[in-house]
């Protein structure tokens, strides 16, 4: 193992990054596929039905069947659409969804952090990339040239801007406690206390904003099928729809990773169970957060749009600000 690592480290940097990226891409896409299957299974069980169980044993080949279906379907572009932007939008969504993984560390070994790039301003990079992600949705909705997508994209833009603010503020409390903007540094600062205990308010704010940021139920006003057909991706079909779909699930995975890194101790093992490798802890925590997501979707009804905005601006933002001030004062007083 050590020898293998030695030869890996001897490779030129660009090749190493390329290999790491390819492996990570494979991992993320596979986890997307099975997160989707898991969601359908879990939703099924929660609604007392079996869920997908026809393709392969226990329905395990369902993602492959879905992919084949999406690839084979006709790729339609409406006459009223703006062809260039219409085709560009899914790529923006997918690109931003994946590029976040350039800075997310998965684990740590004595020789370094398991990440493609250990960026010092990692958390700022995360915020920057996720703030670009909204372009895919809003451009896609606009370029479709019909009214439901436009309404969906306008909603999503307003919603994502509003909730991003509270989300960033909930990060700052963690930054103050850990004293660094590097994601690996934040995780190592949680060796004794995971930040969701001292930052419980921040964690709550983050959980709510994370659901809203990824446009998931109960904040999925962007694609509210009872009002907007399918929201911003009404006109998309085939693989282009598939790209949006992948981006949504990858974003779910991303916010779960961020929650794990910032609040749930990253790859730190709980109760001193250090014989289980850190990566597995990381994956388990991300998985738990993903399950929570699906649970929410099965449980809660959709919010009304004005209430959603009022909640974001009048509750979450003040609470996050207050949390930030209290954290800053406490840290300053304790020196």
């Amino acid at each position: 193992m050590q020898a293998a690592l030695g030869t890996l480290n001897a490779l030129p940097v660009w090749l190493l990054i390329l290999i790491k990226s390819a492996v990570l891409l494979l991992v993320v896409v596979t986890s997307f596929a099975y997160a989707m299957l898991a969601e359908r299974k879990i939703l099924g069980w929660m609604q007392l039905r079996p869920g997908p169980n026809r393709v392969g044993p226990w329905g395990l080949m369902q993602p492959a069947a879905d992919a084949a279906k999406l690839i084979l379907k006709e790729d339609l572009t409406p006459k009223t659409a703006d062809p260039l932007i219409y085709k560009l939008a899914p790529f923006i969504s997918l690109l931003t969804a994946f590029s976040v993984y350039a800075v997310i560390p998965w684990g740590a070994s004595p020789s370094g952090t398991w990440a493609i790039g250990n960026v010092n301003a990692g958390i700022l990079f995360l915020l920057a990339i996720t703030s670009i992600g909204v372009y895919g949705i809003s451009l896609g909705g606009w370029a479709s040239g019909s009214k439901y997508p436009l309404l969906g994209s306008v909603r999503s833009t307003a919603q994502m801007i509003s909730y991003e603010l509270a989300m960033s503020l909930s990060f700052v409390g963690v930054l103050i406690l850990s004293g660094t903007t590097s994601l690996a540094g934040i995780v190592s600062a949680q060796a004794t206390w995971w930040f969701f205990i001292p930052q419980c308010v921040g964690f709550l704010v983050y959980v709510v904003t994370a659901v809203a940021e990824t446009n998931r139920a109960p904040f999925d006003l962007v694609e509210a099928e009872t009002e907007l057909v399918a929201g911003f991706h009404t006109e998309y079909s085939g693989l282009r729809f598939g790209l949006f779909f992948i981006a949504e699930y990858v974003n779910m995975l991303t916010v779960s990773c961020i929650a794990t890194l910032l609040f749930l101790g990253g790859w730190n093992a709980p109760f001193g169970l250090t014989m289980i490798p850190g990566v597995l802890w990381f994956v388990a925590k991300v998985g738990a957060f993903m399950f929570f997501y699906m649970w929410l979707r099965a449980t809660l009804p959709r919010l009304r749009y004005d209430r959603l905005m009022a909640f974001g601006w009048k509750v979450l933002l003040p609470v996050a600000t207050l949390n930030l001030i209290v954290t800053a004062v406490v840290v300053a007083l304790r020196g």
Partner: protein
Amino acid sequence: MIAFWIVGAIVVASAVWTVTARKPVYSVVGLLINFAALAALYLSLSAEFLAVIQIIVYSGAILILFLFVIALLSSGVAPFAQGPNRLPRIVVPAVAIVAVALVGLVAGINGAAILTPSVSPSGSPLGPVGSAGVFGSVADFGKALFTTHLLPFEVTALILMVAVIGVVMLAGDQTPYVGSSKQAARVERQAREAILRGGDR
């Protein structure tokens, strides 16, 4: 250096596209590319924090509002379809004169090196980017912002606050201003009656 020229070309090309694009949304996309390339330029100058902030603030917040407004105002329709779509003829000599003047200015300041942009005053810009003590790191930036430049920072914050309040005053709530709660109750009752009568007030 090669990266500088490639990114520089992207910056200029996207800026030109932003100005010349016929649909406002294309301009937004052009500007988006421009901001991203500009952030890459900042990165190559090892101003890591500035690069990230450039993306967060300009691409993530300001530009998305542009898009928001443009998408609402002109869904699919180019608004300038009928208007004159030509820059005035004077633009060609004007651009030439400005370009010559700029080159002269840069040459005057910089001695000779126009085609080899000076990257950093002190040696290599490539260091362990972001750690304290290295030019452009988050820690140093924050310290400088909140100690040496605290007053300008606070004044800027105040000015922005004034702007926000001004916007709220200009575009905010359209309900008529009333002096007392009694008056407010009367206005509200009248509005309700108007709605009940079936007419919009």
